[in-house]
């Protein structure tokens, strides 16, 4: 498999090229088929790769060719295949295949069908580069590539200005993060002379680089993660990104791309272990994002917006895990979250699709009977994300909360608050959508279940959302943590204190009780199916804490004003004014001198004679002997 590892990203690339180059003549059926088969082929290869992986070694680096070689700068185009990247490969290609399949049904009536699959293949290609890259430069290529794919797909329906605005916003906010990534990467290169993971992490602790520098580097990388994984303060693009087609939201803005930041930090765990302040910072940002986003999700009425804020919030949990040193917990939650959040989005997509584009949950209700498969799978996903024991989300979230407790109980209680809010808004969404009475405008006979091509992915993801957690059973249950063992050669949890078994039981019980209470609260609140206009604090939450407006007021508008000032005043009047001033000065001086040329021959001659005379006198003065 080692020699053929490059085939994994190659298939999506080929899919992209075929669909991209022949978009004019491509028959509709074929385009979706090519796109899906390309990812499926990668998935099969990823499976082969997974089973061939030596569980005891820490993987290998495969160099494809020399990428940049200039003087002392040597960057190969290399792939790092180890347990961490293999796991991500499975998640990306697996969920990717399901979502491509789903898209065949979802996008069947769209004009840009071929373009859609080309973009989606390009996204998978970039995402695979991101996780497979053997050094930060290759990761950066994938990192920016997924940003590009996300930009193109958010603005997929390009005739709508607000959609393209959302795409632009996503790209620019990501770019702010990318600058952080770039600075971090170049600092690593500066201090360690290499950005190749294998050499870098093998020798990093022995290099004796001061902790302050390590903190700075880790912090710079984390800015990159903030952009890509939508953390405070760069998270506002993700809710807007819901402008794209729903399968895109599922794949890019829930399951894979936004977890790139977690992957990057887990990949750099050696670095973060040497940077204690940066770690604390990651944890604080993580928990803050989890709480802020969850609080906003409580009051949203757009089904996709709720899921978007929920994604931001769950990503916050993952960063909390990373920040407290539980890299395995973070990666575990990435995986389970990928299953249930993709499922939620696809379920939401099915609902939206069948309600002819309706996204407001106030106009839904009673869909359980009309769409039984969607209903059941959606319920499973809700149970998983809320953390009901037995479902995957329970195990991963529990692991994070226990690790947080070990680091500092405050993290745990805040995390519990977030979990409570999660349970509430998810079930508020669930009840409003699937139970009660139908409040929309469509005739009820028009609503029906989705075609098979869309329901099969839902079923597969639902199964995964249930069983996905069992690879990470806590030690408390007397079982092996399979995921931790699997990842052990590459990433290991860092300095997590022991929590007594009794305490752990107590924490687990506490969170389950809180979640159950919140679910019943949600049930009772949504009984009437009527949502009142929000006022006061509720309004504040509904308007997403007015963060966008604040950014607009303190960053965007001043920047525009400054640019206008530069353009209109500084450049036109001051700098060009000085340049033209020189020209005018010469002109004015010449205008004076011009008067000498008055056309009077007598005057010319007079001046001439005087000149001769002056020369004569001077000559006699200086050379009296002649």
């Amino acid at each position: 498999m080692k020699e053929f590892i490059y085939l994994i990203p190659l298939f999506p690339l080929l899919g992209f090229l075929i669909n991209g180059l022949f978009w004019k003549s491509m028959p509709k059926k074929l385009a979706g088929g090519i796109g899906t088969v390309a990812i499926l082929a990668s998935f099969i290869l990823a499976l082969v790769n997974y089973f061939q992986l030596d569980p005891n070694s820490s993987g290998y680096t495969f160099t494809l060719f020399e990428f940049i070689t200039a003087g002392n700068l040597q960057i190969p185009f290399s792939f790092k295949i180890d347990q961490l990247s293999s796991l991500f490969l499975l998640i990306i290609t697996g969920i990717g295949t399901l979502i491509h399949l789903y898209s065949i049904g979802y996008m069947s009536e769209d004009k840009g069908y071929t373009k859609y699959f080309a973009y989606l293949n390009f996204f998978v290609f970039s995402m695979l580069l991101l996780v497979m890259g053997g050094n930060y430069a290759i990761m950066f290529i994938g990192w920016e590539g997924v940003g590009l794919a996300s930009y193109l797909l958010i603005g997929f329906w390009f005739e709508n200005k607000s959609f393209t605005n959302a795409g632009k916003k996503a790209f620019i906010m990501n770019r702010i993060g990318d600058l952080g990534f770039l600075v971090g990467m170049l600092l690593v290169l500066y201090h360690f002379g290499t950005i190749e993971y294998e050499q870098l992490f093998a020798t990093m602790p022995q290099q004796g680089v001061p902790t302050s520098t390590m903190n700075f580097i880790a912090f710079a990388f984390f800015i990159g993660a903030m952009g890509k994984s939508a953390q405070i303060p760069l998270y506002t693009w993700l809710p807007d990104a819901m402008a794209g087609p729903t399968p895109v939201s599922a794949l890019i803005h829930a399951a894979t791309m936004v977890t790139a930041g977690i992957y990057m930090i887990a990949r750099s765990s050696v670095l973060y272990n040497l940077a204690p302040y940066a770690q604390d910072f990651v944890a604080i940002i993580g928990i803050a994002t989890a709480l802020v986003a969850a609080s906003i999700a409580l009051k949203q009425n757009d089904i996709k917006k709720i899921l978007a804020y929920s994604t931001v919030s769950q990503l916050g949990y993952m960063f909390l895990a990373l920040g407290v040193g539980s890299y395995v917990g973070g990666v575990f939650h990435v995986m389970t979250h990928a299953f249930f959040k993709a499922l939620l989005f696809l379920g939401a997509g099915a609902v939206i699709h069948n309600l002819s584009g309706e996204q407001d949950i106030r106009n839904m209700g009673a869909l359980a009977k009309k769409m039984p498969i969607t209903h059941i799978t959606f319920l499973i996903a809700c149970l998983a994300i809320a953390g009901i024991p037995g479902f995957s989300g329970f195990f991963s979230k529990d692991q994070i909360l226990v690790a947080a407790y070990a680091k500092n109980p405050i993290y745990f209680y805040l995390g519990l608050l977030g979990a409570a809010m999660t349970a509430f808004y998810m079930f508020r969404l669930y009840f409003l959508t699937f139970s009660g009475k139908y409040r929309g405008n469509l005739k009820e006979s028009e609503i029906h279940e989705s075609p098979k091509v869309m329901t099969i992915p839902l079923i597969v993801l639902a199964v995964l959302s249930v069983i996905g957690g069992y690879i990470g059973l806590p030690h408390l249950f007397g079982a092996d943590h399979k995921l931790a063992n699997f990842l052990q050669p590459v990433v290991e949890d860092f300095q997590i204190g022991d929590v007594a078994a009794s305490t752990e039981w107590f924490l687990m019980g506490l969170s389950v009780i809180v979640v159950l209470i919140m679910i019943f609260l949600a049930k009772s609140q949504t009984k009437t199916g009527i949502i009142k206009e929000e006022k006061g604090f509720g309004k504040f939450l509904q308007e997403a804490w007015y963060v966008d407006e604040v950014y607009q007021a303190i960053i965007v508008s001043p920047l525009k004003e400054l640019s206008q000032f530069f353009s209109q005043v500084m450049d036109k009047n001051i700098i060009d004014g000085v340049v033209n001033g020189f020209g005018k000065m010469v002109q004015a001086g010449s205008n004076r001198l011009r008067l000498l040329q008055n056309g009077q021959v007598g005057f010319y001659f007079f001046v001439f004679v005087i000149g001769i005379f002056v020369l004569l006198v001077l000559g006699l003065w200086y050379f009296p002997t002649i």
Partner: protein
Amino acid sequence: MILLFLILIPLVSGLLSFVIQSEQVKSLAIVSSLATMVVSIILAFVFQNETAFLEIPWLQGMGASFALKAGGISIFMALLTGIVYFILFISRLQVKLPNLNRYIGLLLLTQAGLMGVFLAHDFLLFYFFWELALIPMYFLASQWGDENRVKVTFKFFVYTFLGSLFMLAGLIYLYLQANQSFQYEHILAAANQLDASTQQWMFWLVFIAFAIKMPLFPFHTWQPDAYETTETSSTIVLSALMVKMGLFAVIKWLLPLFPEGTAYWSSTVIVLSLIGIIYASLIAFVQKDIKRVIAYSSIAHIALMNLGLFMNTESAIDGVMYQMFNHGITVTGLWLLMSIIENKYKTRNMSQMGGMAKLAPTASIFLVILAFSNVGLPLTHSFIGEFMIFNGIMQSAFDNHILFMVLAGSGIILSAMYMLRLVQKVAYGKVPKQVESYVEAKDISTPEWIGLGLVLLIVIVGGIYPNVFMQVFL
């Protein structure tokens, strides 16, 4: 001898085009530029590790000679000139202009001058070609283009010529110091022997000419106007090639000649470059005219390259060399697109555009990819160049190297802001009502397709496997 062909082919065919018929001149231009490109490719990829040298007696009484030398960056720039001219002629095959034969003749003469600047190995010869490139450019800019072109071109000419005069003064001083010789080696030895204070003022005497040509903030004000008003082909020659003369001259002449002067003034130049990056990017962000966006973006990119030159690190200078090439190619494609867009909407005002993705999907695809190349996205060649420059900045010995890197890096955010704004206004949305009646729905023509396709090929190949190009100068 092969070096002489690079100058002679465009020179002869340029003179020839003044006398022949308009219809034949197009084929002449294509044959000539193809031949020049082939010669430059042979030189770059076949003789790559040998430095070609040619010396013909010329003005011996003055201590000058017709010395050409190709190696490293010189040949890389000659390659760029060859490629850009070919793309230019092939893709603008169907453009109708008054006095086409004169237009093409002047373009070819400019090419001869450019080649001479990049290859000259004698200071007087260098100066000679430096001005030789400017004079046909003056006529190109003042006779074809927008209404107020004469005024703008006059400013451009006087401004750059003023800079050249400063350089001439420095040249004469060095000539006298070098015992009345213009030979590169003699001038170099003489300049290096100057004491520190002389080097310090000599630095500005020579650098001001290059800074105006680039143009570096605050000497840039001629540039947006000139780019805006000139005919597209002239704009391409100006912005893809002529402004590179300034950067090239810094690499080949300024840095080796005045090491102490450079060391003394580098912090000043660095500050100017950093201001230039941010300032020009911000201005580009609020422009309404599509051509002015590219013009200001060009100022920002050139400022980054100039910054790299003064970092005194190998990676930065290698990166700048590569980036000069990349910027030349990318910007050629962008100008071609700007002219396509202008022809489509009959305006350059962005607010009256939109919906091109529907009207002309192929052109829009090219626009998006080239816009991202201009932004420096990975897998386009600009990323490699910028990455190396940023790395060079980070590796440099300045105390504030991280700050420099972050400020220069803010350019990648700002460039995304203005380029995406451009893409959004032009390609996305709907066709505005007021232009609906006359906007042309046709996509790009075959010649344009070929030209832009070549650009794209270089952009992508250079971004995935940069060694293809970088081996030329490394």
